[in-house]
């Protein structure tokens, strides 16, 4: 049996949520698409074809080749105006040994008595109708498959599982342990999330860690000790929560969300790539980028004020190009300006044996390995010469040459050493000469790397550069101590 999952054709109600791919909208602790894939896994269907629509790259990035589920996932693309059955009818023989099709905003909601054995009853055949067409179809019968491909309708011989709409067929959901729920509007989407996170999360595999009952915490979630996490809640991967924030109860926070300090989030859904500003209270809302939506009536408030809520989407192609040009040109200026100073000061340091550069094997742009020269002093005691060296940022001179070679950025994140592990998300990795840790006194490198990846801009680079260059000059004693502590021979 093969599975075809149709991810195009965005439902109208999801427009208010912005440009998030609808199949990646969260339900509880996971994306809708992952529940579909879970059904395939449970039914033993290992060959999956995903039909892509808009935002194809995000769906592809999420699923990859399917290896993480032990599946083989391939992709096809059809235009939004095309019907998925056009795709199915291109090669009808391909589905002769069985077809599982999912193609609507359908959440396979597990009942309390769900079991995989019950679910496997679906292999006998079944369908779910929604608004006159087949949203879910499974059959091994070539006749039923043929009719479905030709007409998009279910075969009359098939049992119909239809808890939402009501049809002439009856196939009680408890037979297969699943209520197929078609999400029909924004209120339904919100309530479903709240119900799942409150009562039903334990029925599914949750991502990341579940430290206590009713709480699902994803990977790489950074929460200072002062943060209160009140279950039930679900937090996705790569999130950062500021100090004294309160998350929960009944909060669904998607991936790549930044919640600033002193925020309170409850009874709400925060969609991925969203920044929630300092000291805000989000209660009974859906927040998607710079949009705040009241789920009860669908009122959408779009805020052009990055201090409140904003999008932290990594899709900044133009800005990144601009940053690259700036990064290169400013590095060239710095190299020209520092060359003579570096030559003289470093020559004296070498003559006096005060320190030298050591190559460190780090991950560069696009996850390529690069040797970054790192200055290490020979003595932990700071001397006047070293203070000049650090204060004028001459210790970064050789790294600037790597910026000119296009191996690292001028401003960004602290480069990660190769031996610290592979870069999981190259698109959010910006190894650089200067970072927030050079610009500000007390920073958490990991948190700030994530913050930079989300909020990077030319203005942010200038801010880092200004603070880094001046802070190192003004607070030279602190800088030299810090550098020597971290990199002493």
């Amino acid at each position, binding site marked *: 049996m093969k599975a075809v999952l149709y991810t195009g054709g965005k439902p109208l109600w999801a427009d208010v949520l912005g440009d998030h791919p609808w199949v990646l909208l969260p339900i509880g602790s996971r994306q809708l698409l992952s529940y579909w894939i879970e059904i395939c896994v449970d039914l033993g269907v290992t060959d999956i074809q995903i039909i892509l629509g808009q935002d194809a790259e995000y769906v592809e990035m999420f699923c990859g080749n399917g290896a993480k589920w032990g599946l083989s996932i391939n992709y096809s693309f059809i235009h939004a105006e095309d019907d998925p059955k056009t795709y199915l009818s291109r090669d009808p023989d391909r589905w002769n040994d069985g077809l599982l099709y999912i193609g609507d905003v359908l959440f396979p909601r597990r009942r309390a008595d769900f079991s995989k054995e019950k679910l496997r009853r679906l292999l006998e055949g079944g369908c779910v109708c929604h608004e006159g067409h087949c949203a879910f179809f499974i059959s091994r019968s070539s006749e039923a498959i043929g009719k479905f491909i030709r007409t998009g309708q279910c075969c009359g011989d098939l049992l119909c599982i239809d808890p939402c709409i009501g049809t002439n067929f009856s196939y009680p959901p408890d037979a297969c342990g699943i209520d197929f729920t078609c999400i029909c509007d924004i209120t339904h989407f919100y309530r479903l999330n709240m119900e799942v996170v409150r009562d039903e999360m334990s029925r599914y595999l949750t991502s990341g860690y579940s430290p206590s009952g009713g709480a699902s915490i994803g990977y790489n979630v950074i929460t200072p000790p002062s943060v209160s996490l009140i279950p039930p809640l679900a937090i996705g991967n790569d999130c950062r929560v500021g100090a004294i924030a309160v998350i929960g109860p009944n909060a669904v926070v998607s991936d790549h969300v930044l919640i600033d300090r002193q925020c309170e989030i409850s009874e709400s859904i925060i969609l991925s790539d969203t920044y929630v500003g300092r*000291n805000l209270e989000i209660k009974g*809302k859906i927040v998607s980028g710079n949009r705040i939506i009241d789920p009860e009536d669908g009122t959408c408030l779009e805020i052009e004020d990055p201090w409140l809520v904003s999008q932290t989407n990594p899709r900044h192609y133009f800005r990144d190009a601009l940053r690259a040009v700036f990064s290169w040109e400013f590095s060239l200026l710095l190299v020209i300006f520092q060359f003579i100073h570096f030559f003289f000061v470093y020559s004296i340091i070498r003559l006096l044996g005060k320190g030298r550069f050591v190559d460190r094997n780090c991950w560069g742009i696009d996850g390529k390995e690069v040797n970054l020269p790192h200055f290490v002093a020979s003595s932990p005691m700071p001397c006047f010469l070293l203070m000049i060296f650090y204060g004028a940022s001459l210790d970064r001179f050789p790294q600037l040459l790597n910026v000119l070679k296009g191996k690292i950025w001028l401003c960004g994140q602290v480069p990660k050493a190769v031996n610290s592990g592979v870069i999981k998300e190259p698109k959010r990795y910006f190894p650089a000469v200067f970072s927030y840790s050079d610009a500000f006194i007390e920073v958490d490198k990991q948190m700030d790397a994530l913050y930079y990846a989300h909020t990077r801009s030319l203005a942010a680079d200038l801010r880092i550069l200004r603070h880094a260059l001046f802070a190192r000059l003004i607070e030279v004693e602190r800088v030299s101590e810090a550098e020597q502590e971290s990199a002493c021979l």
Partner: protein
Amino acid sequence: MSVACTKEQGIGIVTLSGPLTAATVEAFREQLAAWQSGEADVKNFVFDLSAVDFMDSAGLGSLIAALKRITERGGDMKLACLQKKPRMVFEITRAYKVFEIYDTVEEAQKAAKK
């Protein structure tokens, strides 16, 4: 942004129209200050926000600044007829804890008289 100010039973009724955002707060501030300077005896104010369809943090800041000025002079300030979208800004920023908000201008006036 237009600001219409009237005096009813010793209470200043300030009716705002249009979005109250960073682009319009200066006009709001100037027009309010100009009216206040001519009506020095008015201490209590009701701000009618029924025609304010949008507000950002700058707009909210201008209302907080107005509240501060009025209370420093021993007066009081009430808000009335907050629309759905500005109300959402008040909710997320917790500004509803700072202001007294009424559904109608009449209710706000009654409260201001007390």
